[in-house]
């Protein structure tokens, strides 16, 4: 589809908006509908659109598979890390209240970090799944 100017230009306009919307869904998830999983999928959708229009090779050079692998692990480490931090603060696993002096701020920070972890892992996994199906090579 590389030779289709309409698609290329529309994609170039839309992709930043998709990514921005993903960030909105991610960080506004505390107050409105949304959260890490949805944001991760929307974020990955931006990259997948890029891969569809400009080819998987271009996508592969934009986000190399070994970087994706690191992000997959990083999200889960962030999630579990929050839990371990609360453990180290002598509270139960994922008891966010311990994260701050003020329990409400603690809950806010806890859910923020956990959702960020979910978003990172889901986004990276979605792109990896796309690359795995679209390209014959090992992702």
């Amino acid at each position: 589809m590389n030779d289709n100017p309409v698609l290329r230009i529309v994609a170039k306009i839309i992709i930043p908006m998709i990514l921005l919307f993903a960030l909105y869904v991610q960080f506004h998830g505390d107050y409105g509908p949304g959260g890490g999983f949805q944001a991760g999928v929307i974020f990955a959708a931006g990259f997948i659109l890029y891969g569809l229009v400009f080819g998987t090779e271009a996508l592969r050079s934009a986000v190399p598979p070994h970087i994706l692998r690191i992000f997959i692990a990083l999200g889960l480490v962030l999630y579990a890390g929050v839990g371990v931090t609360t453990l180290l603060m002598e509270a139960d696993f994922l008891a966010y209240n311990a994260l701050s002096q003020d329990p409400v701020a603690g809950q806010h920070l806890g859910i923020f970090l956990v959702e960020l972890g979910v978003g990172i892992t889901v986004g990276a996994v979605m792109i990896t799944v796309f690359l795995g199906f679209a390209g014959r090579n090992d992702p």
Partner: protein
Amino acid sequence: MIITQLPALQVVIPLIAAPLCLLLYRPLATWLLTVVTSATAMLISGLILAQVLDQGVIDYTFGGWAAPFGIAYRIDLVNAYVLMIVSTISTIVSVFARVSVASEIEAHNQGIFYTAWLLCLTGLLGIAITGDAFNLFVFLEISSLSSYVLIAMGNDRRSLTAAFQYLIMGTIGATFILIGIGLLYALTGTLNMLDLAERIPEVANTRTARAGFAFLTVGIGLKIALFPLHLWLPNAYAYAPSAVSAFLAATATKVAVYVLLRFIFSVFGKDFALDTMPLALGLAILGSSAVIFASAIAIFQDNIKRMLAYSSVAQIGYLILGVSLVSPAGLTATILHLFNHALMKGALFLALGCIAWRIGSSRLGDFKGLGYRMPWTMGVFLIGSLSLVGIPMTAGFISKWYLVLAALERGWWPVLVVILAGSLLAVIYVWRVIESAYLGGKDNEAQVGEAPLSMLIPAWILALANLYFGVSTDLSVGVATEAATTLFGAG
């Protein structure tokens, strides 16, 4: 402080180690991390078991949300016992895995292999520890998805179709379990098992409760590989990497049997599950058929790994027979056999792993004279086989003895006949291998040496455990009896 957090750490440590494995990615580093994590998990489950024996049930809540609202872990003796089996087997087999995996899986996939291993361990430990029905489903999916990956990594092309077959069957099973849990949730408005157990009796006589129970039983039956639903198991075990066959054969189906016990005895209560619903008779028939038919099919297998897989299906039959007797004695036999079968199948699959590493095959024809060429490995296989048949002085004898006693107590003579017939069939299929290895003549000129010590020592630990728990039964029978009383009393 650390003692009170043990239930969380039991699951969280392998859960964190898994992404770290993916970050490390080097074969040796990831293997080391897997062994250390498994050993830590074993230590924690040992501490938990000691604590439960000492003080009784442990309760743990996540995120400071009290029990029926948040996710709670509730560890009684049965949980602690299953945790101990899973983490011990994972430790022993992961030590074994390094050389075996290095020869069977390409270097650039080994990081993913150990990641999947740790995720599978996380899932199995999570199923065994949680007190929340939906949490149980999530862990079941974690362990299942990672075991599909592990099986697909076998160096035989057929391992891909085997993994795909397991994926389809396993997903159907998991979906049934989810539908069952969903129906219970619709009926009672709770997912906490303790809460469910309190609320189900009031609403037990509804179609929703019966349908939920049926969905759960069939779904768990698929995961257990209960006789007519066992078709995924032989190929999955036969074509998986050797270490994975040993790990899954010794843990995965055991944990699924635990789930069945938990739902029958703790959630629904034995009166509803085994009496109101005609499950006891059904389980007795399916268990007996599993013992007879799977053992008979095992006799005709040319691939020894496949033979052992069919033998696993038969052994699951014994476990189910113990449940169907609906007595503390029968339940003791089942719980005891969970442990003993893990020991014998672990030892046998590790011996096969050594043989596969040396001669690159598990076909019966290649076993000719192997008793002289790999005496130590075949020694493990011999002990494992004796235990499988149920020769006195081995662990297998103890569990069959208790099963026979339980059957006699109920006066179920046909069950006795089934157990004896199953043992005789086991003699036949095991004897084919022993005969070929020891009496097939040692005319083969190719002198094949032994497997390395890092594989032999774990295999021998399991073999010696078979002998130890065949003679000194205080620990295994003691815990099993108490666990059975806990479950039976709860219903």
